[in-house]
């Protein structure tokens, strides 16, 4: 199979415009004849479902939550980037584009990223029109904050709940369409397979989580907006139910999966407290605007942080990256924190932590100003750790937060399966090997509000789709395979909970395919996962019935997919013999410990094609060509 990126020709600045002109349109009266299924209702899912329905398409939307408002986009804290240049500080579409390409360590497609930067401007307008209460100045204008990896202030925010407010905007637009009968909403319904007929996506198989009933839903096109796969590590900042099942089943039906090893480890999370822990909590990157990261200079220094004098502190980000300081990008800041802890200078009981200190800012601005900016985050921190960040520095440690890899898509956001489109974090397209802060919300909404509503028309106008019925043999086969899988899981009747397997998988992934990887760790990880997988299918315990609301079954079904994905991530990390962004191979580093890219051999996207249960997947390559930026060693010094 060949990966056809379908990047339009012409100058970078005009590609999206000329593409929009060249695309085929569907006549307004014909749009209602086309049925589009959207899976997921986070920023990308809800915005695309609402917008396509506004255009006149018949839309059905599926979520495993009890309401589309609960999708994990809701938890994003810090903000959303846009090249508005409201601060007059030299920002532009080109600068946002450049920062994103560089931040991604030159492993993203120029054309996609440029389009993203162009759309960013419209997103803010759209959201304000919907009533998103972004932070404002007294004069009534919108205000901005700065975020990692940028030297301009282009991040729009709504306190520490930006994701919530953006999602509610999209959710309300979606609910309006549901109320009008223009979107059919299926809540508590989880996609378990994609239906292909003659190689084209024609619907999904879904399980009603209330009753366990599995049924097939047919459509003219399918859109997956099902989020990232960070929970493969068990402990991550993702919501507990976030999973890879939708895109993984698509992979097994032929949708190539790109750059699975590109995982973002976020530097500022609350450190793990013990083995009982079920998830990790992010402390927004915006805190690094006013907080200073430091660790004691001496190893094993257990003094109260307030008793450690200035001269015995190491403000390691300011020391190593003077021009970006505490606002170094996430991958860089995470590695720096890990390095400090590896040297034995970590803090807290486990030694896996560094300080994020607000004392200087509080002295400069006062408690009130700090509380206005970060009050809810400070409160959240205190509730979890029982420590008051106004009085003592926060303890933070990196944690898995976002996955840049995902289903491979072309410029139109279509996967290698015709008719199957993938948006938001679920696709691989815009962030390369590392995502900059406040860019995930931007991508989800750009894909959903502005890209897919246009490109789906181009697909539908040209696809010659035969009418489809539920008794087509390929449709029935997909549905019965889904039923068989649920029965198989129930009938194992082993001794271990799905969560216990998930924890073991997470530990393997974190230790061997986490912040630092090498040939040896990755090779053993693949073996370990193989063993775990074998045990899972013999010894997992899934009590209850498949014809019922059964959370143990939901979990087991997702964990089984995570194990297979984990193996592919390790394989991808092993084959990529370079370090870039969040992918750090210890064999490939500069003398001062920075990521050492190999542009001659690896300036490409690696997309994996499934070849069946007992065969190795093929590694397909999409070369990345850079016409507008110069590849350089990324420097934030």
């Amino acid at each position, binding site marked *: 199979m060949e990966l056809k990126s379908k990047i339009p020709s012409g100058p970078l600045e005009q590609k999206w415009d000329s593409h929009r002109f060249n695309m085929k349109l569907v006549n307004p009266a014909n749009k209602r004849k086309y049925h589009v299924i959207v899976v997921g209702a986070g920023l990308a899912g809800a915005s695309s479902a609402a917008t396509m329905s506004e255009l006149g398409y018949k839309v059905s939307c599926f979520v495993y939550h009890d309401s589309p408002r609960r999708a994990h986009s809701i938890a994003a804290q810090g903000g959303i980037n846009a090249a508005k240049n409201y601060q007059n500080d030299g920002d532009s579409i080109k600068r946002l584009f450049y920062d994103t390409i560089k931040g991604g360590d030159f492993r993203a497609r120029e054309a996609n990223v440029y389009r993203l930067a162009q759309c960013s401007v419209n997103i803010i307008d759209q959201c304000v029109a919907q009533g998103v209460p972004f932070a404002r100045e007294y004069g009534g204008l919108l205000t901005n904050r700065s975020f990692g990896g940028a030297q301009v202030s282009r991040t729009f925010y709504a306190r520490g709940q930006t994701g919530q407010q953006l999602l509610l905007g999209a959710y309300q637009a979606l*609910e309006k369409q549901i109320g009008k009968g223009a979107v059919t909403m299926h809540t508590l319904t989880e996609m378990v397979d994609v239906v292909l007929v003659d190689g084209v996506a024609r619907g999904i198989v879904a399980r009603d989580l209330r009753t366990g009933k599995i049924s097939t839903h047919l459509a003219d096109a399918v859109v997956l907006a099902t989020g990232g796969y960070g929970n493969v590590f068990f402990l991550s900042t993702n919501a507990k139910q976030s999973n890879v099942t939708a895109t993984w089943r698509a992979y097994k039906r032929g949708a190539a999966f790109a750059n699975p090893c590109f995982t973002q480890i976020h530097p500022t999370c609350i450190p793990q407290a013990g083995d009982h822990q079920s998830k990790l909590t992010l402390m927004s990157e915006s805190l690094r605007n006013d907080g200073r990261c430091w660790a004691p200079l001496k190893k094993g220094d257990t003094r109260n942080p307030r008793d450690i004098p200035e001269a015995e502190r190491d403000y390691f980000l300011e020391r190593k990256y003077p021009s970006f300081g505490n606002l170094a990008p996430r991958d860089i800041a995470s590695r720096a924190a890990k390095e400090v802890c590896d040297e034995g200078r970590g803090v807290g009981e486990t030694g896996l932590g560094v300080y994020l200190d607000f004392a200087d800012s509080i002295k400069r601005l006062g408690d009130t100003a700090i509380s206005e900016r970060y009050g809810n985050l400070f409160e959240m921190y205190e509730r979890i750790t029982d420590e008051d960040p106004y009085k003592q520095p926060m303890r933070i440690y990196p944690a898995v937060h976002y996955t840049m890899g995902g289903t491979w898509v072309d410029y139109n956001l279509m996967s290698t399966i015709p008719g199957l489109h993938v948006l938001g974090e679920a696709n691989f397209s815009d962030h390369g090997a590392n995502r900059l802060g406040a860019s995930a919300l931007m991508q989800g909404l750009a894909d959903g509000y502005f890209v897919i509503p246009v490109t789906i028309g181009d697909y539908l106008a040209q696809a010659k789709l035969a009418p489809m019925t539920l008794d087509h043999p390929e449709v029935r086969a997909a549905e019965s395979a889904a039923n068989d899988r649920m029965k198989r899981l129930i009938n194992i009747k082993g001794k271990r909970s799905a969560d216990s397997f998930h924890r073991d998988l997470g530990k393997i992934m974190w230790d061997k395919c986490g912040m630092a990887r090498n040939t040896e760790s990755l090779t053993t990880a693949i073996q370990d996962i193989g063993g775990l997988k074998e045990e899972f299918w013999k010894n997992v315990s899934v*009590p209850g019935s498949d014809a019922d609301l059964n959370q143990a079954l939901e979990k087991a079904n997702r964990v089984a997919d995570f194990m297979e994905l984990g193996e592919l991530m390790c394989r991808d990390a092993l084959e990529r013999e370079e370090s870039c962004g969040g992918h750090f191979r210890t064999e490939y580093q500069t003398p001062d410990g920075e990521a050492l890219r190999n542009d001659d051999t690896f300036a490409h996207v690696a997309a994996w094609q499934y070849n069946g249960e007992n065969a190795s997947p093929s590694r397909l390559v999409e070369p990345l060509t850079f016409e507008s930026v110069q590849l350089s060693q990324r420097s934030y010094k």
Partner: protein
Amino acid sequence: MNFTLKVWRQANTASAGRLETYAAKGIPSDASFLEMIDIVNMHLEEEGKEPIAFAHDCREGICGSCSMMIDGVAHGPVKGAATCQVHMRTFTDGQEITIEPWRSVAFPVLKDLITDRSAFDRIIQAGGYISAPTGGARDANEILIGKLESDSAMDAAACIGCGACVAACPNGSASLFTGAKISHLGRLPQGQPERYRRVEAMVAQMDEEHFGHCTLYGECQEACPKQISIDVISQMNRDFIVASATKRPEMTSAGAG
């Protein structure tokens, strides 16, 4: 720490439920309330018994999934926190804890501690939005909104839709939830054109869903994990009265041609 749990178990909406007793042993004091249930569930699963079904997702107090009455209090003993933000150090070792689902006619139990809160979505469908189809928006800075106005809209917009307000209300009223959305949108200039249609439609839907009436007990704001003030209910009531008093028939033939 060790606890004795009395947990509501109910197979589905149609069947009767009962309280079952479980021992939660060796629970770390740093564990969250949901992590405590995770531990109990893990043991149940290992014994081949059905785990306690409960709604949860983000576990950082923003998705609004988790929803438990803990000793009769919505979201438990910590003020301004959702169930997932309550930690076991808040309880005393050896304590007996009773855990039940939200209790409201409008939120039928689906299983154990999970209730059906889709009535909230239908209230939003009725009018909890600003009509702004994608594409037609003007530049964001052309709409000036004073900081105080914007902040007060944000205070109301912070609602996570968990339903604690309904569960805590002796009348089972959804006024805090509905009032919060009406206030969020009604306090912004963008929300003005639909302001009075919105309040009428949302209040009507609230009644249709069998939520009770508000008699200003104020239990809702005590239980609200985002501490939304009952001021939003006053705003809803005021807007509703204005809407009823100024209502005019809508033109049906406008714009033809």
